[in-house]
């Protein structure tokens, strides 16, 4: 379905280049749900945007993106546009702000259906009601304007819009961050159902591993523009960075985390001045001396897992 081969994204700023994504290779099968995790600035959104060539002009993209056997990076504009509405759709991070403030949300959801002649006026209205119900909003909300909705309600509208044209691949960048747990559970159930019923593939991006593990079969963890671990979501992580990421979400009721939020020591890496060796070494709690100089590539660790760490072997 989707195949990334050594994808790289570099932003050209006046002052310098920012290598945001540095060689990411991944495969996503039809009907599979893959989660992409990693801390802020690790390059997750840049990967998502590169997949459909939605990056700004200042970005230089390298490597290859194959979608259903077609090379996205080489596609002509007309073809790319067709792909963007029919086969793949993306829920952008923070896209709730992109809603048109002077248009009712029902009309905004119906617009792509009408433009692409997928439905007539009355059918479209029925489809809008159905989509709103799927994301847990009552039908009368179709007549609301964006400013009349709460943050979480706007995020659900964005999910409804992404579902409108029945895509084969959904790329969801932080789709549930503004949602409370109950609605989140509801949206995640919906997403799982779509995958099961229609064989839709999903690439879901989040910094919350528990959200990803809830929906995705496989998880990929990014650090400083590279993958450091890929493996089944049902198993424990083995890379020290993935473990730190997982430990940072507290368990309610656990006295150890009461009034003691845990983070990861050290500063996030500056993509313009990446440390040599393993990029994680300045913050790694178990780093060896050799980590400062020798860079470790992703390698097999067990049957279904790859990890990039000297300490994680077969």
């Amino acid at each position: 379905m989707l195949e990334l081969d050594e994808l790289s994204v570099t932003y050209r700023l006046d002052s310098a280049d920012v290598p945001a994504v540095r060689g990411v290779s991944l495969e996503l099968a039809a009907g599979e749900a893959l989660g992409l995790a990693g801390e802020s600035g690790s390059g997750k959104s840049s990967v998502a945007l590169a997949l459909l060539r939605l990056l700004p002009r200042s970005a230089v993209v390298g490597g290859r993106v194959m979608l259903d056997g077609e090379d996205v990076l080489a596609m002509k504009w007309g073809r790319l546009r067709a792909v963007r509405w029919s086969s793949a759709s993306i829920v952008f991070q923070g896209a709730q702000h992109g809603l048109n403030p002077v248009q009712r949300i029902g009309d905004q959801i119906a617009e792509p259906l009408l433009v692409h002649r997928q439905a007539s006026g009355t059918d479209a209205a029925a489809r809008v009601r159905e989509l709103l119900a799927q994301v847990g909003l009552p039908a009368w909300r179709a007549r609301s304007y964006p400013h009349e909705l709460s943050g979480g309600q706007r995020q659900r509208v964005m999910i409804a819009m992404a579902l409108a044209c029945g895509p084969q691949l959904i790329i969801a960048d932080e789709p549930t961050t503004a949602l409370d747990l109950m609605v989140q559970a509801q949206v995640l159930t919906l997403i799982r159902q779509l995958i099961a019923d229609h064989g839709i593939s999903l690439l879901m991006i989040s910094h919350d591993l528990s959200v990803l593990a809830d929906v995705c079969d496989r998880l990929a963890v990014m650090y400083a523009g590279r993958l450091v671990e890929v493996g089944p979501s049902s198993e424990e992580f083995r890379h020290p960075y993935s473990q730190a990421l997982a430990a940072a979400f507290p368990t309610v009721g656990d006295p150890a985390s009461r009034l003691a939020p845990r983070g990861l020591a050290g500063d996030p890496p500056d993509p313009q001045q990446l440390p040599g060796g393993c990029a994680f070494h300045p913050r790694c709690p178990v780093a060896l001396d050799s980590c400062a100089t020798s860079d470790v590539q992703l390698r097999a660790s067990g049957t279904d897992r790859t990890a990039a760490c000297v300490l994680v072997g077969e």
Partner: protein
Amino acid sequence: MLEATDLRVEFPGRGGRRARAVDGVNLSVGAGEIVALVGESGCGKTTLARTLLGLERPTSGRIAYDGTPLSYSGRALRAFRRQVQLVLQDPMGSLNPRHTVYEAVAEGPRIHGLPDEETVVSSALARAGLRPPERFFQRFPHELSGGQRQRVVIAGALALDPKVLIADEPVASLDASVRGEILSLLLRLRDDLGLSALVVTHDLGLAWNIADRVAVMYLGRIVESGPTEEVLKNPQHPYTQALLSVLPESPERIVLTGEPPDPTRIPAGCRFHPRCQLVAAGNGKPECSTQPLQILPAGTDSQVACYLATT
């Protein structure tokens, strides 16, 4: 410090339906206290936060800061906002895309005429975890990741050394590592400078991490409040119990039935009754659907608005 009394905020709705987003709330945030306001999407958290800041005028009720009622004249509001700062839910919406990070953070200090602007800006950025700060001065919002943008917004609020911070989902867009850092920062500011904070969130883990007290909001009202340990470890209100049951560590999920709550149609009696699991199981009381409940007072001890709760 900051106190709301019998606060109501209504919005005119479509076809004469009024949305009662905040529908009778008593809430106080004491000096050096961190209060978490939790509740599901659309229950009125942001509206309450905006009203506390004077950004929204209440339909009725009042807000007092240090015992003085909030006045809505431009001058009084300006002085008030030096003390009480807001961190908004969505970093994209609160940053001007044409302003650099430096300008964004310097805006507050400029309005209030603080000296030594560059030092103020760079210390605020560093405290919010953007280090070294100079690296970010000339960046535009679109040149930052989502989490970096949120930290710029937090830096903007910290630049004025406020007494009270009202933070609306301050870490929702942040990853685990930065999240821990920002929450530790809030705790540190409280311990060192006596900062008070109202943190609006749907993240119960966050409340557990930093809050002294938790207030649970449902459809425009606070239905349970009290010390964090009590509310989160021994919830009394059926809604709080359901909310906590969705956590991954919870042994059993309580699934609420019924329509999602709608502020234009607040049910009679207990506003939670159409979805209450006790009512659904046949264990409700007749008053659940007929008698409105009292509005909870603004105290700091445990309180529950439910006919079946014992406390």
